[in-house]
């Protein structure tokens, strides 16, 4: 299988994730879409790693997983905090700050 196929999948997933961020209002789902984007990056990294035959990309991918996990932890924590404050869990409602 040509590596390019993997990359095309990765690009597609990346764009789906990006589009998802734009259309969804729930911060939770937006976080999921972010995961999609990061995973698209991971797929690209692993594919390139395979293409070049060095494992740097794989290491990178693992690091990205760690990062994704951290982002999730903090993001979910924020969502919980927002929910606890009885603020709307909806990014469109959070627009006290603007201008």
């Amino acid at each position, binding site marked *: 299988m040509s590596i390019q196929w993997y990359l095309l999948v990765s690009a597609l997933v990346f764009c789906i994730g990006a589009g998802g*961020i*734009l259309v969804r*209002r729930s911060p939770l789902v937006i976080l999921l879409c972010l995961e999609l984007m990061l995973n698209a990056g991971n797929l690209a990294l692993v594919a390139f790693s395979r293409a070049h035959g060095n494992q740097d990309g794989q290491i990178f991918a693992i690091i990205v997983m760690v990062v994704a996990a951290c982002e999730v932890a903090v993001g979910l924590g924020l969502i919980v905090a927002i929910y606890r404050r009885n603020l709307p869990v909806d*990014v*469109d409602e*959070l*627009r006290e*700050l*603007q201008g």
Partner: protein
Amino acid sequence: MSLQTLGWLILAFPLAGATIIGLTFKALPDKIHGAIGTLAITLAFVCSVLALLKLTDRPQDAREVVAHGWDYASSVGVDAELSLLIDPLSLMMCLIVSGVSALIHLYSTGYMASDRGYARFFAYLNFFVFSMLLLVLAGNFLVLIVGWAFVGAASYLLISFWYRRTTATRAGIKAFVINVVGDVGLVLGTYFIFKHTRSLDFLTTFDRVDDVFTRNQADLVAGCVLLLVGAFAKSAQVPFHTWLPDAMEGPTPVSALIHAATMVTAGVYLIARMHPLYEQAPAAADVGSVIGCATLLIAATIGLVVTDLKRVIAYSTMSQIGYMIMGVSSAAYAAGMFHLATHAFFKALLFMAAGSVISAMANLQDLDRMGGFRKALPFTYGCFIVGGLALAGVFPFSGLFSKDEILSIEFDRGGWYVVLGVLGYLGAFLTAIYTFRMIFRAFHGDPVPEAQELIDGHLHHGDPVNPATGEPEDTEVGFPGPDHHIAERAPGMKGAMAVLAVGATGLGALQIPGVTDVVHSFLEPTFEDSSLYASLEPSAAASWIGLIAGTLIGLAGIALAYRLWVQQPAAPAGLQARFAALHRFFVNKWYFDELIDAVIVRPFAWFGRFARNTFERLIVDGAIVGGTSSVVRAGSAAVRAVQSGFLRAYAALLLLGLAGLVLYFLLSSS
């Protein structure tokens, strides 16, 4: 004492007088200020006389002496030092200025006695004399301009001496601004000449004129015409004359000194001084002749109908200066200067006498309100008659000799100058009429209440009222008190008037055709470079014919006036009705004020309003400031609108930017 030192002293005394009075005006009593002022001018006169003696000691060809002071503003090719030129012309002017001024100071000590601005008046007056002497003694263009402007400033200060009258301040600013126009003409004319001669010094300039200029060269003509503008503005020639009648708002001694005897004749002096230029630029000189002639007629016609006592004299001044300008522009230098001298005497005398009347009338100047002062003010009446005869040009009074010399030179030059001469005689006829109209209306007929009171020994009158506006005068500062200041009761005034009357009568003796030739020969050194000076010498016979004709014309005018205003007092009204349009034209002063208003003042006022209301608001504040700031503000609004607070919109913009950025990189890849 050298001539140079005397020259400086002539300047120093009036300046010192002004300074001392200015600095001590609170410390010393008023009377002393009058004395200081008069003394300072008298000393200047004495110095002038001493200088005259020194100068006449010198040989004919060494009578042009330059006194160098210090470098005033010399740099990068401009030679502007403080230098005086003492020659017969300037010395003659010095004598006239300081002599007449001394007398007027003396007169003022009486006339202004109860004015609260007494000290201020003398300070101004001394400053004026200093300026005038600086003007006439100037050795180069820059000093001339300085003196020129200083007399303008002094004139302004004195015209608006009673500064709480709005009429006075308005007249002051008018006079000053027109004088500044003259200054500008002078400066610009100087530039034209300096451009070629590369020197501001008079003697150097005159030396170089023939070398650097061809006859009637454009730059020279332009320069000379511009100098004429300066002369016209200062000497109240058409169309720069409108300030002079208004200047009568000043105290009467001011009118006598500045607006009759000295300052207004500066233009005549200027043309005489610049004669080498004008002889090289006859086109410009002709402009002077024509304007002078026009002025003398225009002023005379207005003088016929004006009812303000002082303004009649003022218009007569304009008219007489018209003669002088016409004369010096037509190379009748000595005659013009001689007329300047005689005019100084008889015109100052007339003004002083008028002052006496006006004081008696509690500052009312309207001829319609006057009459019958002959008995109340006999001495004043006598002075008026002497001055009037001199002005009308009746033998043997001085005015006849000087005026007719001018006219006979016009005839002598021939060509179209003859027209000028004829018109001059027409002017003389009119002069005689309006002069005696004034005298008859003021002194003859039934005494008005004021005259009657004076005859009865009443010495005070009520609160003064501004005749122009009718509002009560503010006498707190700088206005005559309730006392009458008439020549009959003030020895100082009387003395000054007597001296002037003698001069007005006898000064003609200096230039009796075929008999004496004092002025002409005295001025010769100044005009030795003139080709016309010596050649234009009408024969004694021709001159005598002129004199006789002049006298006859004068007498005819007086007779007509007597007939109209004494014998048939109803006649003038009939004439007025018959020539209503002409009368209105004259009464409105040929509409010069209106013309200037429409051509110059209104456009500028409009421009000012346009600048303030439209340009400043729309362009400077609107387009430049407002335009920029509204663009920026619109941008700000746009940026803030995009900053909507919607998280997803932010992400969208981020992706848009990303897409754009990647697109750029795609396009620039190989």
